[in-house]
């Protein structure tokens, strides 16, 4: 009786192990053609004009892009300095404008989670701007997920450039 039970267990184990094989057959069907899309070159202008005479685009170029760590939306001290400067501009030269915060992510994922991560980044900046005295009603947000890269190389510098929030002024 014992040996029957034992052999049953052995057979069951063999059946189990047969089922857990992870081989997946992948079959390519069409010829591959690759078309690379040129990356947008981001130019940051830095002018010396007095604030009161600056155009909207001049002021916008003074608002520095804030970068984030991988899979994070918390603000580090470097980012906080940029936000403080942005808030000062928001109370002076840019006082008549509203601002749109554009959240972006690196290319790791085209799903909704990535869009939400971009949004949480924008929201972190919004909260920080409000804490610096900017009215919440002047700030709108949008997330572009991974769909608005400034750099498309497969390098760490490139990925970190895409994990960012841009400031766009609205009249």
């Amino acid at each position: 009786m014992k040996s029957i039970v034992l052999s049953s267990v052995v057979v069951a184990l063999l059946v189990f192990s047969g089922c857990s094989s992870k081989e997946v057959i992948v079959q390519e069907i069409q010829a591959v053609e690759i078309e690379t899309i040129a990356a947008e070159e981001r130019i940051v202008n830095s002018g010396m004009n007095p604030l009161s005479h600056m155009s909207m685009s001049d002021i916008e170029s003074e608002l520095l892009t804030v970068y984030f760590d991988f899979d994070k939306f918390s603000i580090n001290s470097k980012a906080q300095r940029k936000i403080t400067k942005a808030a000062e501009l928001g109370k002076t030269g840019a006082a008549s404008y509203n601002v749109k915060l554009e959240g972006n992510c690196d290319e790791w994922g085209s799903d909704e989670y990535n869009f939400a991560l971009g949004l949480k980044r924008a929201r972190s900046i919004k909260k920080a701007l409000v804490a610096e005295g900017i009215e919440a009603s002047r700030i709108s947000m949008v997330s572009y997920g991974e769909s608005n890269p400034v750099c498309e190389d497969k390098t760490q510098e490139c990925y970190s450039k895409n994990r960012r929030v841009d400031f766009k002024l609205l009249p």
Partner: protein
Amino acid sequence: MKILISLMLIFGLTFAGDATIEVIKKVDSLPSIGLEDASINYGDTFKLQFFKALVADLNVLSLFNVDRLHRTNHYNATDVVVDNKDMNYVLRYKMYEDNFGALNMDMKIIKKGKNVFSKNYKVSRKNIYMFISHAIAYDINEFMEEPSVAWMKRTVIFSRIVGPKKSEIVISDYTLSYQNVIIKGGFNVFPKWANKEQNAFYYTSLDGAKPTLKHVDIKTRKVSSVISSDGMIVCSDVSRDGKILLLTMAIKGQPDIYTYNVASKKYKRETTYGGIDVNGQFMDKNHIVFISSRLGYPNVFSKKLDTKEIEQMVYYGRSNSACSSNGEYIVYKARETSNAFERNTFNLHLISLKTDFIRRLTVSGVNEFPRFSEDGDAILFIKNYDNQSSIGIIRLNYNKNYLFPLKYGKVQSMDW
């Protein structure tokens, strides 16, 4: 001995229908099929194009060892060509053009010298030949009395990123051979079919002051705005009857899942966690699965609508950021590596709510955006690997993956 047999029988009965267990079919034991082209009117290039499409479709059926050589014969010839003599099945077809320029097709299946199945097809233009190919594959599958592959005839809708803040919304067949750009220009993402008939769809427009969900009636070409939200808005799922939408919105800047009643235009917030809740998918009328960061990393949870019952569904994977469900099955995307500076691998995994098994469905690259077919027979997904974007299809019961590469751009999201 009786105990042994009954043990094996119990095991077999328990797991026979479980898609989380891989069944490795013996390729050698599949019946062989050879093709014979008896077409007139059309040039060699087009004949080969059609032949390749048909071979691809027959391969996806996973029922045959398909012979890849293009052979010709007369449609009414009594014998199959010599090279096809040992084939279990021969598929002979004839394409011909009628007076109105339509593509006509006669097809028959020959088994042991006898015609066992025959049908004819017609499409108005020759450049939509792939739909005939899909229809033939569908009919052969029915003839072989295998579980339906109705999904082959369904239309895929996807958004393709063509540059920073630039995208196209494209309608295609499941192999991407046919592509019709339905929305060009602008920045439009997350297309989602609005109903089973696939004659209308939703998408997110990111061009205006606020992200806006729009509805397009394909027949009338009428575009209407549904609802806007600060930050983001996505139509994640549509109920079977098309009456309720699962939206991810961020009305106060906080991404949460909402149900939206199409008729009354009223919405209701379904999740309230302060982190990220996205990607709601109907499991049935009253239950949804979704992605939440409530554990500190993205993972799959379920919720019974109109209650506060939330349950963690997946206990494997460091970062599970997308999912789709069909009945008792959930397919989800898991990050296999966690490196900010190198290429990461994302694979799709399948779980069943009734067992503890996890089945990995993909092996390399970035595999994401899984979407079950309506009948649960197949999973469509996006694969991005080495600068190449493809749409993939997984035949769960046959343990096979097929990839159909996109010629340009990157697939952002899709639905079928």
